[in-house]
């Protein structure tokens, strides 16, 4: 091979490899994209039926109920306009409590219950996830403006 051919071969292999990696990345990106949906949007039927999404809102006061056996817990997420019942199997994070803004990842079942695979409540007690703050604002802003 001449030097030019060698170089072209090297460049060709690199371009192919990088192209494959980019294709891989973009398809993985598309597949694993999670949209954030508010309770109002869920009730309006805007939630995807066949894929997971993230649901955020306030944990409604007095809504947390544990089953007497096992770890299943039920609560209601609200943006003060609409309510979505949530079921979760597992240990809730330290900062989970009623009246707290949280984000849950999961999917809707046939009965309209959001089955969460993961519940996130980060930060300290005055913190509000920005998505939740936004969703509350959209839902007529009945809630006091959150302080980050």
């Amino acid at each position, binding site marked *: *091979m001449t*030097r030019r051919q*060698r170089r072209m*071969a*090297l460049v060709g292999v*690199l371009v192919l*490899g*990088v192209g494959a*990696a*980019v294709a*891989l*990345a973009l398809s*993985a*990106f598309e*597949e*694993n*994209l*999670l*949209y*954030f949906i508010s309770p109002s949007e869920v009730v309006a039927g805007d939630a995807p039926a066949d894929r997971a999404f*993230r649901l955020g809102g306030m944990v409604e006061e007095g809504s947390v109920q*544990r089953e007497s*056996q*096992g*770890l299943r817990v039920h609560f209601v997420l609200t943006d003060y306009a609409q309510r979505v019942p949530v079921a979760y*199997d*597992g*240990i*809730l994070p*330290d*900062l989970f409590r009623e009246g707290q803004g949280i984000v849950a*990842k999961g999917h809707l079942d046939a009965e309209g219950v959001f089955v969460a695979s993961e519940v996130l409540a*980060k*930060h*300290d*007690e005055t913190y509000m*996830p*920005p*998505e939740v703050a*936004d969703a509350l604002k959209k839902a007529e802003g009945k809630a006091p403006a959150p302080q*980050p």
Partner: protein
Amino acid sequence: MIPELGHFALILALCLALIQASLPLLGAWRGRAGWMAVARPAAVGQFVFVALSYAALTYAFVANDFSVLYVAHNSNSELPLVYRVSAVWGSHEGSLLLWMLVLAGWTLAVAAFSRSLNPYFAARVLAVMGLISIGFLAFVLFTSNPFERLVPGALEGRDLNPLLQDPGMAVHPPMLYMGYVGFSVAFAFAIAALMGGRLDGAWARWSRPWTTVAWAFLTFGITLGSWWAYNELGWGGWWFWDPVENASFMPWLVGTALVHSLAVSEKRDGFKSWTVLLAIFAFSLSLLGTFLVRSGVLNSVHAFATDPARGLFILGFLAVVIGGSLGLYAWRAPRVRSTGHFALVSRESALLFNNALLVVAAASILLGTLYPLFLDALGLGKISVGPPYFDAVFVPLMLVLLVLLGFGPMARWKQDRVGRIWHGLRGAAVVAVAALILAAVFYASEHLVLVASLALAVWITATTLLGLWRRLRTPAAGRIRRPPRAFVGMTLAHLGVAVFTVGVAVSGAFSTERDVRLAPGEHYPMGPYTFTFQGVDSVQGPNYTASRGMVEVQRDGAPVSVLYAEKRIYPVRGAAMTEAAVDAGVFRDLYVALGEPLGGGSWSLRLYHKPFMRWIWFGGLMMMFGGLLAASDRRYRTVQVRQPEGALAQEAGRVHV
């Protein structure tokens, strides 16, 4: 009074940084030795004043001076002393001051160890570091002053974020910053070389140990962060693909590419413009990482501050640094000629593919980290991509890299033959294929990644040891040659990759994780282990109260360990914290975390059995030590940059043209 002194010292440091950035640069341009000579004393002075300022803030923490706003927000008189010292970098303002201290320290080191360097080059390097200092000092002074007073002073502080009250988190940020900021040296070398228009072997040889040390610190910092997350976040994972972690991982990946590409630049005078570009990217990503974590862009445990003035400054600063250096690169790099040619089969090619893989991996992480932020900023909806995305992209890329890792060090520079490499690696390949078959038989198809990873770990180990054996063996039988430290360092780091791979693969495939509900006296079997819950008592800490659950672990009836997992309440912040209990072993970790009380003395508990967890961090430590060892190679210490007669005058003349 002392906080004001600290503030004043910081202002003086900024003045010195202005001098350090301007006069030496002008001197190098005009050929004035006296102006260039200002760089070193200015760097020393800057370090002294930044250190004084840092000491003043530390004093305010130690003395519980709650009339300082930052102290009042991040400390408490009940906080143990060691965490009062580490609370200095517990939030935005102080962590930037720490960043500044580390930068001043690296600058001081460059000033001290650059005496044999071409004076023009040294002056430019120090000036570039001065420019970075100006940016950071201005940022601290104008938007994030840690010495701001609270009038009237608070009686008691709001306490440090409980998540940060952990030994791992106390050490993690300084190590991470040592790495981030260390890349500023590689960056300064690259920019100075571009300015002078000289990128020769000496430049690469000078950059190399600095870059490798920075990389080693970054490796250590990330390893510590991972270990902290495992212990402190209470769900037993060691990596979450959280934006905060990605922020430190991207510079690491590009830094790893840089360490390898510098080898080609030094030994073969090749890849030079690429190396410069990597140095620019590594530092830019370090800046991006610092700011992503510290500006509050991300909603995550690290990001506390939100302030538009800061955001604008950060964007402006990033634009100046990245835009300026890329502009300089576009202007100057076409002059840089790499003289080393290489064949398709050669070590250069292997390193080129290594670089391509690492950079593509970093880019895919950048996409997953920044794209959601962009969409959000543009008001196009809120999305996120979780760990599945990162796993799907990252794991295949790294598996290819691991295959390559076996070949690269065995290939000769410039030109090699496939037949020769194969001949040398036959033995290792046989062992690796045997491991592959064995793993496939045992673990079948359901653990494809595990089988591939195990075989690759064996492959890397075998080839690396083979390489070491070749180096040790001398033509004269019975004698052992001592290989250079750089080679030993590389060997250690590559073995670390193998150890890390085993840890990730095995713990990923065979961890048992159960969230269970247990009443006191109840037990839960897990493989050969039995976890028995013995109830919860209450414990009083210095600044928290805790419910402490006791879990006895037995293996086949024999006691193994008693684990005390805590759920702490920090009353000042009203924050609850899970303090997991871990019985660590070489081949398995037993992990217990306390969930919530479920009434009647029952609690929810996380019980994990995680095999080979330690290997993950041990692999990281091996990589770090490998890096440090390589950087201490004698050839970097004895290097004398010989200047041909009149080279200095020549250089000065050339720049005028």
